[in-house]
């Protein structure tokens, strides 16, 4: 008997007391949020909670989005900016930085040497201050938001879900998914929180609200 068969038969033996009439797929629960943790001001809550994770959050009208991205880049003195395929061109600000497209794919060394990356998001979560990437158009491969030291996320206000259950329902499990809550951090040394270990040390979130 191979390991697969022996593990499965051990499980079946261990569960011989479970009546055959009990259906394994009949989930005993209805999922989803039964209590509203977000309140009426979903966008405001998202901005506050993300800022509590030491992300830099600004709220701007769509006409001001490119300028907000430019300010974030200028603040850190960016010299090179990675722009993923599918990122809206009108949101890429001109400035003293060079632009790197990921076509053909950048090498790990090129990404490691880049200063910043700007992306859109798939959705966001107000209650936890989280942005969620499914690495589709405008978001790029997973490493694009990992190696450069600054990550700028442009979030449309209507993309912000109130809570974790709503956000998960908007995500496609067949895509790679990355949920980001603040910059990279550790609390491993005496439980002192330190931002910036291996991932980006700076996270900027530009919330675009519009009429």
């Amino acid at each position: 008997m191979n390991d697969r068969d022996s593990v499965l038969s051990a499980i079946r033996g261990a569960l011989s007391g479970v009546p055959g009439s009990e259906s394994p797929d009949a989930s005993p629960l209805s999922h989803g949020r039964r209590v509203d943790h977000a309140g009426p001001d979903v966008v405001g809550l998202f901005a506050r909670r993300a800022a509590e994770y030491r992300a830099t959050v600004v709220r701007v009208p769509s006409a001001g989005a490119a300028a907000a991205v430019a300010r974030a880049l200028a603040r850190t003195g960016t010299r090179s900016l990675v722009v993923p395929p599918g990122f809206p061109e009108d949101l890429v600000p001109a400035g003293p930085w060079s632009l790197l497209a990921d076509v053909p794919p950048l090498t790990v060394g090129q990404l490691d040497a880049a200063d910043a990356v700007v992306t859109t998001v798939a959705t966001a979560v107000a209650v936890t201050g989280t942005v969620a990437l499914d690495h589709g158009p405008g978001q790029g491969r997973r490493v694009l938001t990992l190696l450069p030291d600054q990550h700028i996320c442009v979030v449309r206000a209507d993309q912000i879900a109130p809570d974790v259950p709503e956000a998960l329902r908007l995500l496609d499990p067949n895509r790679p998914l990355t949920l980001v809550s603040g910059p990279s951090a550790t609390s491993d040394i005496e439980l002192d929180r330190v931002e910036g270990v291996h991932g980006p040390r700076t996270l900027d979130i530009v919330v675009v609200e519009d009429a």
Partner: protein
Amino acid sequence: MSGADNVVWLGTPAFPEAARTALADPQLRANLRRATATIRDRRLAVAAELEDWEELRETAATIKRHTLRHLDHHLLRLEKAVTAAGGVVHWAADAAEANRIVTCLVKATGESEVVKVKSMATQEIGLNEALADAGIRAYETDLAELIVQLGGDRPSHILVPAIHRNRSEIREIFRREMGEWGAPAPEGLTTEPRDLAEAARLHLREKFLRAKVAVSGANFATADTGTVVVVESEGNGRMCLTLPETLITVMGIEKVLPSFADLDVFLQLLPRSSTGERMNPYTSLWTGITDGDGPRNFHLVLLDNGRTATLADEVGRQALACIRCSACLNVCPVYERTGGHAYGSVYPGPIGAVLTPQLVGVENAASLPFASTLCGACYDACPVKINIPEVLVHLRAEAVEAERRDRLLPTSEAIVMKAAAAVLNSPRRLAAVQRLAAFGSRLVARDGRIGALPGPFARWSATRDTPVPARESLRAWWLRTRTPTNGDSRTTAEGKGRR
């Protein structure tokens, strides 16, 4: 399938002895007290933000209970979904088989080093040691695990494995060891956590960038979609999960969830229970392989290693619901004073005291179910409502039973219990013993307390005085003061009659 050696470091020395050493270390106790108090307060604050917290716990417990009752079904669904998404699923009945699978997979790539995401399952099977025996070097990339690995040390907490180390100890370890493993510690390294984290970043970056193979654990895997989830903070997990060409994930069979939708409950409970955050900085979810993004080869190793034996015990089974948040450690008065090393296993604290004896067989870890005051704080804190005190008591009975089976002569405890049973079964004997005790104890007592007791009671009395029994027992007092009149209480009359 279980054995004494499938949870590394088990049982030497046994808990009471190891705990005594830990208790004598004031630095360790101070570190632990500060750390557990901090994380306890944070957890309480963020759990209180969700008014349906108790409902979420109940839902999580129900999902876990239901999944475990149909574990074979959900694992087969998971296998099918992962395979359909381009992954390869392997099954391992025990630690040796899992290590053999991972070693073969690494060797097939031609590589001699791997980067690792912090994982309890790979610690449990001693993967790093097995890889080293095969000439493969495994680099831990979580900051705390790095501190532990460089220090030649053992993890002492599920979530923050280097909790027993303070900043100056960490600086010394970095200065002494980093150069042996790769990029040395920077000149003038201070004890500031920011500085130490930066040193770890520089040390590991070159390893991430050149790594071709990574090994991870899994926090969850969803059977309907084949999605695997890793929750972390530093980004080292994301590095390992996306940069290498080959990713090998080792996952205990109990980590499967029926559906992707179930994640909403657990992603609300886990970060709040473990680090006291609303959400951890990074959560990575992947389903098989994705063209042009991340590893080209994905292997999922499903690990039994004592879990099916645990599943067979209907009381003990609930320990398999554990999501490794470590909330139970941080509220446990025993853990707070002894630290994790005393438990002699990769799973310390209350959950370790119920999980380890089941994974290895209770006769091989007989002292662990007793490493608790049964205060119940762990049950209150557990986000999936594992009734740890219930399992502890259940395993204590099994430990006593195992010892009785193995010994030719009864233990002193068994003799005392037998004598106590004989006394308590007979009102006449009980009354006689009570009179004797009340009289005898007055001869040895000082100021109403009794100090050291002889023989088998010595260990009990070494840390506490025994109060002197009352001059008169309740039963004697009742008989004396309730003198029956005609037709009065039958109880009293019967009691008197029996005497």
